[in-house]
């Protein structure tokens, strides 16, 4: 049986890990390679770098971060942010990433999903989604960091993502994100019921029991968190011990 995965996510700008609750409050807080090594020690099953660099030059810096991480950390590494072409996929994978995550660009140009899956294999194509309740009993897909409603229904979008050959979906609930009130169980179940590819839960976790809840009450394959791990409120090891106590299969080494 597959282990449920715990995935710390690092936001990286110009080669530095940054953290901020809003766009004006961004602080630089460390070296991404060192953070990756630390999370690896704690037992992270996978690492995500999310590149929030705006400039083109920044991409080279990010690729160098990926390369140095791949030389020191031997678990799967996923890189997202600013990926818009097949060439970006190729460069990122060559630098040592195992998976590439796309979000807004997939909505704007869905054929990027199918092309990347065909060339590099489904296993390295992750589609990230930011979604929110639409007030009419459904969910709407947003792009550009949750700012633009594309008039796309979540149910339709996840089916298209799967049909185009993506290997995984990373579902971030805008409603839950930042609340620390728990993952969005309802939205995750809505998506897990509609696709058979793995779904990664993102957004909303604030304490240990939220991990148990999401992995017991949904079919999510993994849970992702950023600030909780970053601000050392919890370690990956503590989360896994808790899951293990509840007989949820996790990798303890």
């Amino acid at each position, binding site marked *: 049986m597959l282990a449920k995965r715990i995935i710390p996510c690092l936001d990286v700008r110009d080669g530095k890990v940054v953290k901020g609750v809003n766009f004006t409050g961004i602080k630089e807080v460390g070296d991404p390679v060192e953070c990756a090594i630390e999370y690896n020690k704690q037992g992270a099953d996978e690492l995500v770098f999310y590149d929030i660099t705006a400039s083109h030059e920044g991409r080279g810096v990010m690729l160098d971060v990926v390369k140095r991480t791949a030389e020191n950390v031997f678990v799967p590494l996923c890189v997202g942010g600013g990926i818009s072409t097949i060439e970006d996929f190729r460069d990122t994978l060559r630098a040592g990433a195992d998976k590439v995550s796309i979000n807004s660009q997939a909505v704007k140009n869905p054929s990027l999903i199918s092309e990347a899956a065909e060339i590099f294999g489904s296993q390295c194509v992750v589609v990230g989604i930011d979604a929110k309740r639409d007030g009419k009993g459904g969910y709407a897909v947003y792009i550009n960091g949750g700012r633009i409603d594309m008039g796309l229904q979540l149910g339709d979008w996840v089916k298209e993502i799967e049909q185009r050959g993506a290997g995984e979906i990373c579902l971030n609930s805008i409603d839950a994100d930042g609340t620390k009130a728990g993952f969005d169980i309802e939205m995750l179940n809505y998506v897990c019921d509609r696709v058979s590819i793995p779904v990664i839960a993102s957004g909303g976790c604030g304490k240990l029991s939220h991990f148990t809840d999401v992995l017991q009450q949904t079919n999510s394959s993994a849970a992702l968190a950023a600030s909780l791990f970053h601000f050392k409120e919890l370690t990956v090891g503590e989360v896994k011990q808790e899951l293990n106590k509840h007989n949820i299969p996790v990798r*303890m080494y």
Partner: protein
Amino acid sequence: MIAIIDYGAGNIFSVKNAFDYLGYECKLTNSEDEIKKADRIILPGVGAFPAAMNMLNNSGLVPLIHEQTKIKPFLGICLGMQLIFEKGYEFEECDGLGLIPGAVKKIERTDMPIPHMGWNELKIQNECPLFKGLPENPYVYFVHSFAAECNDDNVAAYCDYGGKVTAMVQDNKYVFGAQFHPEKSGEVGLQILRNFAELN
């Protein structure tokens, strides 16, 4: 020196990164001389069976691999493990290296997603020198849609994914194959690579 055979198939740098990290000298190479000089050989690979076998045939290294695997340790990883067998059935029937009897076929599951992707637990079936020093319930990282079907004697470990999936194979001497990615399997994977590098 460990020769990592570079025949054009997939991401081979992560295997080299892992041996570099562990402090073992290794080289990415397709040179017959280097492979002869090496004291052990890795056959990596990502992609489809026929395409990779075609590249390997074109490299002219197949007779050398047959000769060398009789005299020094050899480890196939992922697709490199699948190529060890006599036949593959990805898109079309295709001859493999035939170092271990068996065939590679699509994993058929009605209610499980394919590819089999993620961390799964090794269930040890037969003693294997590459498992020395592993913790209990070792998890390793898999990404594959095809799996080897072979004699139980050759299966060092399998994993459970809606049924048995061959995870690690061996002949009775020098040939080993890992369906999973030891270079992406954390400490457990590094220990397996270390064991391989230390094999007599």
